[in-house]
């Protein structure tokens, strides 16, 4: 392989925590800044998340080509496809890299919904976002687990429902601080987009290193 690696982020989290919706929220924010993205969406047996993102982000809004939203049905345990044996994902990523080396800024890899021990192989993803949601209770961050403790960015979603289920966001914040030491966390509501700007800013700073989009660099070169 003699192509240049395109920065890649992995997104993991339990089923229903908001992985797909988070992507649907931050891709437009990156797109506004001119960054071009591709999405690979892993699922155990279906490809419904990929179909949904293709419709919402590509077909209806034209933020990326339909061909750059790819669904992968991994079978088995979803975490094995992004950690122990990421070969299926890596081959898709390398195919994208070979075709889009000059215009694509970021490849987003969504894991199938899984438990709190999910992590991404560093061979597959450069940056790992783990998303949990308030509905599972405010004790969630203190339960730790590889995902919560070691991800590069912890996203806590559905903050709007906290009052209805008696979840205290202060408890979650204090625990996140203790468990993650100095690593960042963000509270969001993916339904309204609240807090997602901060997620996009982390991606631009820590993954894209605040460089201008490739299409801009190549135009001025």
């Amino acid at each position: 392989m003699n192509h240049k690696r395109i920065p890649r982020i992995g997104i993991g989290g339990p089923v229903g925590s908001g992985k797909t919706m988070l992507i649907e929220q931050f891709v437009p924010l990156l797109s506004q800044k001119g960054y071009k993205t591709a999405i690979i969406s892993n699922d155990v047996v279906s490809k419904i998340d990929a179909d949904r993102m293709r419709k919402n982000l590509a077909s209806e809004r034209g933020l990326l080509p339909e061909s750059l939203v790819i669904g992968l049905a991994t079978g088995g345990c979803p975490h094995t496809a992004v950690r122990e044996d990421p070969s299926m994902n890596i081959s898709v990523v390398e195919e994208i890299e070979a075709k889009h080396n000059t215009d694509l800024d970021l490849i987003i890899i969504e894991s199938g919904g899984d438990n709190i021990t999910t992590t991404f192989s560093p061979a597959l993803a450069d940056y790992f976002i783990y998303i949990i949601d308030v509905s599972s209770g405010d004790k969630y961050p203190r339960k730790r687990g590889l995902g919560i403790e070691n991800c590069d960015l912890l996203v806590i979603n559905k903050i709007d429902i906290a009052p209805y289920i008696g979840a205290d966001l202060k408890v979650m914040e204090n625990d996140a601080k203790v468990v993650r030491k100095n690593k960042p966390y963000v509270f969001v509501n993916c339904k309204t987009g609240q807090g997602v700007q901060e997620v996009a800013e982390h991606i631009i700073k820590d993954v894209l290193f605040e460089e201008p989009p490739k299409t801009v660099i190549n135009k001025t070169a």
Partner: protein
Amino acid sequence: MLVIKNIIGNITTDKQLEEKYELMNSKGSSEKVTITRLETQKLRMRKNTDKGSDLAFVFEHNPQLRHGDVIYLDENKMILLELEPEYVGIITLKDTDKNDQVFLLSIKIGHNLGNLHRPIQVTKNQVMFPLQAETELEMLKKLFAPFNRFIEIKTDHMVFEPEEEHHIHEH
């Protein structure tokens, strides 16, 4: 932003570099960046040193970063990479020479077998464990390739009764 693309050397294995570090450290010209063990194979990451220098790591291949790596060096500055300490469990075998090859080999084989979540049966110089399919032999040969000089791997069809004092997690 300082872009780090390669490792200059490691102060624990390079005497000259260690001396250079001691000298620069005494002059206050050294900086440290701390990462976790899980970040040692990352190809791309952004970090700050203890003195606030902004670093962008960009590697083409798995860099396998190590505690004591020197990642930047010029006349005025040396940046040293450190791993964050973590809790580790330590089991010490009583009355055994810790340098004994057999002891070390057994530990490594046991670790690999444990990762497969198999029950085991042990004789004087053999360890047996159930295979789920004949095709697993190939996987075993790959897994134990580093120990080829010391071991022989074969399969058999036999009654298997696991050791009873182990707690295993089979699936």
